């Protein structure tokens, strides 16, 4: 069916005009930007779509305009630098109403027709070409929405819904137009730097494989929605990633990684710090290869320094994002990760002397830059600080536009793309605070006391977790397989990299080959003590289990600031896999200059 052109033109002109003062502001804001203007024009046209009997109550267009550069090297020689420019496009169309719409169904992302729309905007700012792509994208999104709503309505017909939550949370319209910011990346200098860093490993001939990778992305995030929100913000990142693996004499495959990152690619740490990070990976592996294999353990475990921030970011971070079970056909199960915090607002999740706040508005903490700062999320919601845990009790969850139990609105944490027509909530800058603290030395002394009281030969101390994981996809598969058998909502938890036995005399002994039998949010209630010193851990989350390095195609920065913490009891067990035999042939001698 065709809509007469005259009506169209009128509607388009009226779309962001007089009805509301905000409309005029939106029209003014988008008029200067070719991408936003094209989005505004095509959104205005799409809003009148009623052809299939359902009208649209929410439309959102967002896009990234990114220029990327990446280079990696091993043992002093470079892989080819990779450069690209892209403009990935995301559109969301909702039909039905805020109480019951096309999202949160297993059919929400399903399109039965032929897809004609490209998944990116043209790279040139050609008005007609931009609009042409948006036209096809919104057309498909509308058809998908109508079909999904119908299927969802049919699916709920035969069931008494236990989930009576609405489907959409509104937010006030707001305009933020920032100028794109870009710094020059000296590609040759980075290529040389990466090569030089990768040469560190030539002094460790036992290491079987190693890579040093630099990646940078600079661009602009665009968003326009029908709630009269306009966003244009710079979006930049620089990241150096170091990964290596080695086989212990008994065949056990050991790996470690380190990532150094910055939201301003021109502010990457100096060479000395990058070299230190690279050396630490090599030295960790050298130490581990010589370390004995650990034995099963149940007892107190001290997470020291960044390891504590790592588990707060990984375990608490994952469960603070609640995903509702999507509507499915009766009797057809949908495997979605379950949050242990769903429906638990008001209950105790930490000791009563601990608090937890997530605050994306902060750009730095104690003069150190924070990685989780952003202005607006992927749904055009502007975030503020959220007190998640107060005096040990869960006060709030991280939310997107999808309503969840116990919360009343979107708090702007839609940071990653998601399934079922939704986005995924993620932490930003997570601060873990303890009101009752001890020095790190006192914590270790307390661990020893507990060990002695319990008559154990030693306690356990973790200094580094494999999070984000530097392991392989195969390794992740093994860990995920085990996770299904050990609680925690079936979510895998990373393994310790640097794990030490602490003997009653204070001596520390590195061990390898152990994993947590189960490490869930429940264990955090039984934290017995926390340190006075705060540690910051920055990482890139990509939505993959263990935030596996290199997985996912959308990444966001997160920072966690936390003190060392002592858990009353955790269980560690041997990884228990058959070990591969060491290679038959000795590695080739290295010739590179030492």
């Amino acid at each position, binding site marked *: *069916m065709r809509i007469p052109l005259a009506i169209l033109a009128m509607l388009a002109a009226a779309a962001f005009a007089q009805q509301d003062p905000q409309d005029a502001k939106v029209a003014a804001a988008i008029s200067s930007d070719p991408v936003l203007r094209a989005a505004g024009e095509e959104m205005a046209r799409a809003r009148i779509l009623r052809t299939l009997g359902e009208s649209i109550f929410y439309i959102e267009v967002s896009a990234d305009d990114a220029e990327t550069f990446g280079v990696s*090297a091993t043992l002093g020689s470079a*892989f*080819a630098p990779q450069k690209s420019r892209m403009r990935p496009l995301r559109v969301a169309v909702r039909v039905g109403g805020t109480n019951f719409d096309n999202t949160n169904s297993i059919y929400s992302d399903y399109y039965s027709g032929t897809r004609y729309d*490209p998944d*990116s905007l043209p790279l*040139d700012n050609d008005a007609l070409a931009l609009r042409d792509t948006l036209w096809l994208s919104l057309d498909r999104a509308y058809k998908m929405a109508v079909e999904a709503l119908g299927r969802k309505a049919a699916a709920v017909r035969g069931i008494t819904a236990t989930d009576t939550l609405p489907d959409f949370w509104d937010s006030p319209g707001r305009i933020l137009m920032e100028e794109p910011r870009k710094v020059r990346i000296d590609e040759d200098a980075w290529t040389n730097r990466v090569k030089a860093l990768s040469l560190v490993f030539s002094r460790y001939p036992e290491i079987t494989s190693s890579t040093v990778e630099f990646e940078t992305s600079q661009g602009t995030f665009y968003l326009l929605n029908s709630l009269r929100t306009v966003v244009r913000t710079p979006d930049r990142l620089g990241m150096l990633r170091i990964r290596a693996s080695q086989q212990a004499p008994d065949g056990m495959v050991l790996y470690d990684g380190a990532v150094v990152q910055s939201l301003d690619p021109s502010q990457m740490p100096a060479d000395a710090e990058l070299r230190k990070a690279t050396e630490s990976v090599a030295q960790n592996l050298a130490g581990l290869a010589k370390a004995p294999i650990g034995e099963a353990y149940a007892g107190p475990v001290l997470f020291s320094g960044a390891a504590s921030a790592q588990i707060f970011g990984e375990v608490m971070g994952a469960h603070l994002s609640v995903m509702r079970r999507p509507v499915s056909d009766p009797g057809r199960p949908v495997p979605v990760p379950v949050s242990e915090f769903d429906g638990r607002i008001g209950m105790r999740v930490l000791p009563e002397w601990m608090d937890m706040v997530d605050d994306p508005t902060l750009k730095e903490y104690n003069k150190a830059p924070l990685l989780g700062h952003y202005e607006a999320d992927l749904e055009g919601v502007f975030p503020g600080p959220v007190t998640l845990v107060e005096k040990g009790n869960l006060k709030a969850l991280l939310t997107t536009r999808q309503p969840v139990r116990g919360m009343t609105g979107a708090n702007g944490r839609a940071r990653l793309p998601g399934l079922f027509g939704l986005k995924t909530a993620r932490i930003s800058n997570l601060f873990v605070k303890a009101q009752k603290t001890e020095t790190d030395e006192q914590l270790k002394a307390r661990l020893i006391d507990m060990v002695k009281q319990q008559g154990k030969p030693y306690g356990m101390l973790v200094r580094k977790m494999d999070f984000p994981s530097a392991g392989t996809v195969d390794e992740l598969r093994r860990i995920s397989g085990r996770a299904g058998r050990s609680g925690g909502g079936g979510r895998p938890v990373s393994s310790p990299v640097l794990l030490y036995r602490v003997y009653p005399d204070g001596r520390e002994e590195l061990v390898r080959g152990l994993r947590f039998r189960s490490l869930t949010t429940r264990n955090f209630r039984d934290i017995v003590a926390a340190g006075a010193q705060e540690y910051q851990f920055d990482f890139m989350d990509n939505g993959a289990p263990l935030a596996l390095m290199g997985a996912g195609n959308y990444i966001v920065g997160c920072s966690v600031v936390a003190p060392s913490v002592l858990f009353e009891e955790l269980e560690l067990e041997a990884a228990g896999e058959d070990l591969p035999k060491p290679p038959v*042939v000795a590695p080739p001698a290295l*010739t590179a200059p030492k």
Partner: protein
Amino acid sequence: MRASVLTAKAILFTSVAMMTGAAPPQKTPPQPPLIDTLVRELDRNLAEFKAKADPAPYFIAYSVTEEESDGISARLGAVTARGRSQRRLLDCSVRVGSPQFDNYHMLEGDRPRFAAATPIPVEDSPDAIARAAWRETDRAWRAASQRLMRVKSSAQLRTGNDKSLADFSTEKPATDIQTVPRYKFSMDDWAPRLRKLSAAFGDYSGVINSSVSLTWRREVKTYVSSEGSRLQHGRNFYRVMITANAKAYDGNDLSVMESFEAEDPSRLPKDDAIAAAIKKAGADLTQMLKAPPADPYVGPAILSGRAAGVFFHEIFGHRVEGHRQRDETEGQTFSASVGKSVLPEFLSVTFDPTRKSTETTDLNGWYTYDDEGVAARRVGLVDKGILRTFLMSRTPIAGFPESNGHGRRQPGLEVVARQSNLIVESSKQVSDAELRKMLIAEAMRQNKPYGLYFEQVTGGYTTTRRAGLQAFTVIPLVVYRVYTDGRPDEMVRGADIVGTPLASFGKILATSNRAEVFNGYCGAESGSVPVSAASPALLVSEIEIQRKPETKDMPPLLPRPRAEVGR
């Protein structure tokens, strides 16, 4: 299950060849440092494995494929994608046991895979490359020794008449270091040209999506083996590709495409030739939108040269790939046909990877060495209708103990026998006009109101296995009804050619006197490889078409955006 797919569209890059006059690959004596590093590591691994391992390898080979590529796509006057990349992939082949029975032994559809396409640095410094080769050799040897044990015990429990067949043929090692040309070419110059050219699709209101792109790829292959082969060879692929899509009122998806290939960018078409192709694509699509849907039909037809090329590639080419004659899950249509008539006696079929072009067109399927280091050579497969041989890799089959240079693969997969440049020759040629008269006469003889003319096809697929039907499909894009009563030809849409192979060959009546080339990529168990098929147009007495499987979704609900809306 699809055993193989031929398509011009699915893969971005294609190929061609050089005519006389273009710089041929020059032979240069110095051994590249990459070969030095690989040979050193190969010798070291082989010696240590022989001393320490059981079963010890009797053969090790390394292949490195270096690919450099660049491309620009444009749509309606704007650049939509630009991407360069460069990479080097290492594959390792380790054979344990003996050439008579080794870890590659074929066993009822159980396909061995030892290659892994491991990325290695593009710089030639030895440390990183030696390490990667060492790791890969170790990994491949483990997998090889495991599979040898498994196939040995399985083979003992099976009957079968192929126990005397060896698993690996004896070939002479080759040493040949070629310099792969690097042509002077500016991709940036093409951005404004592609913008301008692609904008022309804006004149056709029914076109929903369109693209005009230029891609370039340079491929250098390095191969060293414990038998002593030392090879470096490769080629360039330049391709201009035009595609456009539309949707008929009843949901029928329509598409047209055209491509131009060249090895040397100076042989790419000029802008006016590309503009003319865009104009034809736009006009064909516009006409197709108004065309009636095709009805299921059995009757005479002409397949244009390009359509005939795809037809032969699917129904014949895939069935003469050597390894299929050994795999008992395969249909083995022609296994026992050597020396017998398989095609009309006026037809001959050759596969010629040494031929870089026809009189009119560069060919996609040429190479100088195959992926087992065997020199490419012309293979006369069918001579005056009689089957003479098969396409051979180093996997012997009964009566054919040696390779004929058709062992091919994409990085990361294992070599099998594959097609190269398929060339159909005919001794029963008539002019295009005469062929058309013969079509009308044949239709009248069969009391059909019309015959069909298949002008353009996009590709096809076939199943060669016993478990599936022995069938093929060729997917036409532009099809006409040629009426017997003198009415003008009428375009129809939404037809696929279907049939069974043996039945189809007997129905070829005559051919035209003008060969056309279909250049594309063939996908099968060893991955995607560049191929071409050249054939004169064919007149067949009976062809069957079926309706395409179709979605029935609506065309876009709103009209295409226009410049004046919203201003």
